[in-house]
């Protein structure tokens, strides 16, 4: 019995779902091993009966929360798909200001009081509303990892997601460490699994896959001093995707 699979999106850029389309010829393999019963972006058909649901995007409004809870009730397994769903992603940047403030700035004095479309609160990741069984992290997640998770779910085994930092993969790729090039990279504290794609292309890691563990303060100070970097640079990079974690700093 092929598992029934459904894709849903909330507040997102739909890049994660696009990665499914980006599987190219392997999409034909995908539909061989699972039954895609709902995927609004590419198909008209829809069913409310599914085993595994993939959720892309963050939750910003009560109406989204309701929709998500319905999906959770119908799914045996729920997978948070992409940084916005897993950790809030870039959507969480706006949590630095209150929702009222942001709405006022953006929409001015328009009468949106009773409009449920505009009833936003602070951005939330999916696991802040419902329990999540598995995470496919990254912005966007790598196609390799997506295949890995789907294959594991189809085989009935736990997806093998690294618990170690990006540095392991970056070093295996023989990249020049970005710190040596005067940039602050979040690789040492970010979860691996993306094959260090950003450092391999010359740009520092932004931490889009989530922070593994907060580094010890003295270590950070030593590193900033050794590579002549400022605290500001570090803070900026850390706040791109991981607003909540680093705000205590």
């Amino acid at each position: 019995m092929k598992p029934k699979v459904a894709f849903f999106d909330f507040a997102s850029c739909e890049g994660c779902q696009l990665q499914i389309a980006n599987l190219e010829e392997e999409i034909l393999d995908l539909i061989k091993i699972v039954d895609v019963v709902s995927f609004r972006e590419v198909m008209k058909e829809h069913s409310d009966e599914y085993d595994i649901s993939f959720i892309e995007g963050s939750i910003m409004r009560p109406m989204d929360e309701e929709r998500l809870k319905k999906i959770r009730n119908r799914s045996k397994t729920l997978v948070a798909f992409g940084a916005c769903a897993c950790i809030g992603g870039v959507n969480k940047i706006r949590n630095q200001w209150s929702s009222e403030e942001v709405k006022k700035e953006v929409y001015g004095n328009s009468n949106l009081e009773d409009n449920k479309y505009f009833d936003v609160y602070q951005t939330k990741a999916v696991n802040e509303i419902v329990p999540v069984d598995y995470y496919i992290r990254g912005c966007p997640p790598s196609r390799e990892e997506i295949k890995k998770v789907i294959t594991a779910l189809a085989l009935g085994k736990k997806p093998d997601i690294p618990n170690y930092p990006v540095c392991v993969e970056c070093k295996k790729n023989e990249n020049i460490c970005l710190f040596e090039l005067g940039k602050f990279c979040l690789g040492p504290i970010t979860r691996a699994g993306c094959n260090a794609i950003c450092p391999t292309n010359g740009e520092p890691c932004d931490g889009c896959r989530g922070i593994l563990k907060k580094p010890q303060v003295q270590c950070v100070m030593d590193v900033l001093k050794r590579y002549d970097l400022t605290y500001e640079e570090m803070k900026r990079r850390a706040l791109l995707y991981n607003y909540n974690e680093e705000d205590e700093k």
Partner: protein
Amino acid sequence: MSKDVNINVHHITRVEGHGNIVLDVKKGEIKKIQWQVPEAPRFFEAMLRGRHYDELRTITSRICGICSIGHSLASLKATEDALDIKITEQSRILRQIALNAENMQSHILHVGYLAAPDLFGVGSVFPLVGSKNQDTLIKIVKLHRISNYMSDMLCGRTTHPIRLVVGGFSMIPTEKQLLKLKQELNNIIQPTKEVAQKILDVSDKLPNFTRETEYIALKSEKEYPFYEGEIASTDTGVFPDYKNYKKIMQEYIVPQSTAKYAKHNRDSYMAGALARFNLNSDKLHPLAKDVAEMFKLKAVCYNPFMNNIAQLVEFVHNIEDSIICIDTLLEKEIKDEKPTKVKIKKGRGVGIVEVPRGILVHDYTLDGNGNCTKANCIIPTNQNHGNIQKDMEKFVPEIIHKKEKEIELNLEMLVRAYDPCISCSTHYLDVKFI
């Protein structure tokens, strides 16, 4: 005809983002026709506040997964405009190929995966597997794969590119890689022609609907423009004063939409492949011109359904253009350049590019520390919402006699024809703060 029609398409399928079509007819009288945009607003412009100039590209790329290269480039152009940074010719050509790649990827995804199913009479591409049209599906997938291969190679990653940075590229492709790409592009010309023929065979399913409206896109004297050009309108001509784009693109809020609408000379206007075609069709490369000829597509075309065909034509043009660009680069020899150095200064910059769905504007103001104090983005789909609404208002009376299911399908096809990118369009509005 005194019938009742009640159509409520919630979260239309096969478009990017969330949109609703509402049609209410009582005893033959049209009570309500509405194109609603309930997509969650994400407040991107708010998020750009106070960010350093080198982060703007990373954040705005996430406005859209499909046009992330386009957003990145518009963002970089705006930043470079504000800081007075010039990029090398090599970088400019590489960026042009990257934009071609995105256009190709998006258009073939739209025409092949999102729009064509309607022409083949199926709900998605999946039923095509094992059918007599499986061959076409396989070709479409191959075209999509090569487009992604192109942007993967140039930008490091096709969705949310990595190598596009302020001043140029963080890493340059090698000569070997460019030669291989050229070979792949040459290899897909034949399959593209075959797919075009297949679409032609079913193109009679595209409704013959026209409504005169204004078309706005970039226009250029030297080429069919994507990366560079001047704002132009089919009504009022070329507008070189790009920093004052607001005079052309006038946005306003409507209650049924979290995205804004836009107008200029008329109540609404259209941006996108058809707009570009209507303004620049004479600059198409030869094979692309042939394909346009095949479908009898001529400027000025007022049928929004032909936007799908214009996308197909552009796909072919992008292949030819990329091959020419690669030849130019190799003639001059690829140099392993570093991005242009940045000197921080106060300033305002505007970056305008054509992305698959139309003309895109990013507008940033930077302070003396290199941080953004003000930002505005005009998204192509925003500009189309008004046109969609107006089209529906004209189209519905013309098809009101049809069965309800058929009306629904036709309205969906109309929306799909615009290839809306709704997540993009609800990023948000301009922000003023001290």
